[in-house]
């Protein structure tokens, strides 16, 4: 699989750097010579010249996009009319595509709205980035905190690029979302101390002005996903189709979205689902390994939904903006890209370069911290171990002061360190930024409605909530807030929809456009799996089962 950056600049050998770390005196975080904007412009991967091209076809022609993603968005469809002949569709009220947190929340909300639901997952329901989320979920419930501060932090963290109406919805719904999750049985940690009695434990995330992150230890996403999946699987009104990726949407004669073409990996054949409305909750794009970065993402994060929605005419935004999480593990190589939660820095762990010096306020917004790490490595102050470069996350100092953290709050850190063969109380982790989140995506309104009638979207596949940089804890909130709203709106839409004829009219228009642009012979999309998944739809369909 992908490894982290190869070494082309000088860096400090691991053993020397470790000695400097251990002998360095405690330091304050240094004053930053560059403004945040200058730091981002100089070192953030989004700002690299090779990271932007203009889209050549579709509704957002001319919009800047990462070139790897542009290949998929400009891709031809995997299927045409001939493939659909003689297929009997399954008919349902709402089709949810994607089995992560947003898809599950949409499913439960659509059920509450009275709809029957088919949930189609590429892998299994629950296999998603949600289950891997560690840090927590934001909700402004502290006495000193307010919805306004949550709103302002989110808008500012996204460099002012977020959609105010969406952010307002996000922060207003947050307390109710926590109550809803508790009602389903999702547990959140309570604060320590006898006087705290019954208050939730709150952590501070980078770029926030208040401790606002609620969590279940450092595996909040797992706690949420296992409960959501159970609720979905136990609901008799939900048909879960596992191992059934969507490979194309279905449209009617008026251009509305009325279902999808799925590929049944077990039977190696196509299936049609016709629906009154569709919720697209396919997540992000980390497994595209943009600009050669390792990723913290799930195996399924291959931007399928973006390609499908764009081909059908949905507007996109901020598709040149990605989040590189500051603390991916850099060594050992076979774990490269694996996530070390921001919670470790929330609790006070510092970042230290090869010279034993801190170089950034560790709780700055993620894109700022990432840029600072990339600068240290580019300017020869990185640490190199077995040919892999990074900087130190100083866990020994943190854990010497608070030894109980590892057992009680940083369980996942301990687990990762154990697999890396590192004792985090004695040895720092070598870290390097890892591709973590797709900031942009499908344009939605506060009901998750895209610009295509009948097509609703929720979660990482959408854009506008996080602007051009997401804050810790706002992703888990986003998927539940907009998952529920999209599911409820889809159920309402389905109840009012008159059945039309389903087909691939939008694919035919798309192919005409590709032909005019000279792109008809280009690659096909969605790709469904990363390159090392060795998957080719036609070959897979043709191969006999073992």
């Amino acid at each position: 699989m992908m490894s982290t950056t190869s070494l082309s600049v000088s860096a400090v050998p691991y053993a020397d750097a470790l000695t400097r770390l251990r002998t360095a005196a405690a330091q304050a975080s240094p004053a930053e010579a560059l403004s945040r904007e200058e730091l981002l412009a100089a070192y953030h991967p989004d700002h690299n010249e090779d990271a932007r091209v203009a889209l050549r076809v579709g509704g957002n022609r001319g919009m800047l996009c990462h070139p790897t993603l542009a290949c998929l968005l400009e891709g031809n469809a995997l299927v045409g009319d001939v493939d659909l002949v003689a297929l009997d569709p399954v008919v349902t009220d709402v089709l949810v595509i994607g089995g992560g947190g947003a898809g599950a929340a949409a499913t439960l909300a659509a059920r509450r709205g009275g709809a029957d639901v088919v949930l189609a997952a590429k892998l299994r329901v629950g296999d998603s980035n949600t289950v891997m989320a560690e840090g927590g979920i934001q909700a402004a419930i502290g006495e000193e905190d307010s919805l306004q501060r949550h709103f302002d932090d989110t808008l500012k963290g996204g460099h002012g690029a977020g959609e105010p109406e969406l952010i307002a919805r996000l922060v207003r719904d947050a307390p109710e979302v926590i109550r809803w999750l508790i009602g389903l049985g999702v547990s959140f940690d309570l604060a320590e101390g006898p006087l705290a009695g019954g208050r939730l434990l709150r952590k501070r995330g980078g770029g926030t002005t208040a401790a606002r992150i609620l969590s279940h230890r450092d595996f909040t996403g797992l706690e949420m996903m296992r409960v959501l999946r159970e609720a979905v699987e136990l609901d008799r009104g939900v048909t879960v189709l596992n191992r059934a990726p969507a490979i194309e949407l279905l449209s009617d004669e008026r251009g509305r979205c009325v279902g999808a073409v799925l590929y049944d990996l077990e039977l190696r054949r196509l299936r049609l689902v016709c629906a009154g409305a569709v919720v697209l909750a396919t997540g992000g794009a980390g497994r595209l390994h943009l600009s050669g970065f390792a990723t913290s993402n799930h195996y399924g994060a291959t931007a399928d939904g973006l390609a499908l929605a764009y081909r059908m005419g949905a507007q996109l935004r901020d598709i040149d903006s990605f989040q590189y999480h500051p603390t991916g593990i850099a060594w050992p190589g076979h774990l490269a890209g694996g996530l070390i939660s921001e919670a470790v820095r929330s609790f006070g762990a510092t970042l230290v370069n090869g010279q034993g010096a801190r170089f950034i306020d560790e709780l700055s917004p993620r894109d700022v911290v990432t840029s600072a790490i990339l600068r240290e490595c580019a300017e020869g102050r990185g640490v190199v171990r077995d040919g892999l470069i990074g900087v130190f996350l100083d866990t020994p100092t943190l854990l010497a002061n608070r030894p109980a953290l590892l057992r009680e709050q940083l369980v996942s850190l301990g687990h990762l360190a154990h697999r890396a063969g590192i004792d985090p109380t004695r040895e720092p982790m070598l870290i390097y930024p890892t591709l973590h989140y797709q900031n942009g995506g499908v344009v939605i309104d506060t009901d998750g409605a895209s610009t295509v009638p009948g097509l609703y979207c929720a979660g990482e596949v959408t854009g506008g909530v996080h602007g051009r940089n997401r804050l810790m804890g706002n992703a888990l909130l986003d998927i539940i807030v907009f998952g529920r709203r999209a599911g409820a709106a889809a159920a309402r839409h389905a109840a009012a929809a008159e059945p039309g004829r389903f087909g691939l009219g939008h694919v035919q228009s798309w192919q005409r456009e590709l032909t005019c642009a000279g792109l008809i012979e280009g690659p096909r999309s969605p790709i469904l799996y990363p390159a090392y998944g060795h998957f080719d739809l036609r070959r897979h369909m043709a191969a006999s089962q073992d």
Partner: protein
Amino acid sequence: MSDRIRLSVDGRMLEVATPVSILQAASADGTPLTANVGCLGQGVCGACRCMVRKQDEADVTTVLACETLAEDGMQVSFIDYFIPDRPHVYDVAEITDVWRLSNAVSGIFPEAAQCRHCGGCDRACPKELDVQRGVALAVAGDLAGAAGIFDQCVMCNLCTLACPERIWPNHLGLMVRRALTALTLRPSDLIHRLNELERGGDVLDLSGTASTGTAAVVSDGR
């Protein structure tokens, strides 16, 4: 760093450079990887369950392939995911009486009392949880104790596959955890904020500068 090893995965002999996880090794020969894969190393999704026999060992163990290093001479067999009919159906919203929660547990999971203490679940658990003890605590009514044992469960379902009494231990553990939380977690700060919002305290200034430097007051809230 680049020793080469040979191992067998689902009957295919593979040669790979170490160190790699079993999961990374499994697709090394170009076999399409479309199942039994998920979080790729974090060990939280439970998708990559497999049986492993190490060289010169008789025992077969169950592990998660993403977090287990491939070794020379290993025999690996992935365990396909099947979703049988769920025998234990409940709606957590319909469990409303915390005084009778034990009754709800035994009503939904009647097989739990039949545990024959074979230890199959404990051996199957890749997270080394005390699954059998968790089941016993739930049956005995120590629900908080049971909930604690299942706290780090990733729902890989290996204990469910291993159980000859069809107890579905991980689902029992999750049901206990869900019901306890839904019935007892009532954080005072969350309640306070929800009450505030009900009284209309959700007016926002969308300019993005309302709270700069100071704690903002949201409408009439307090």
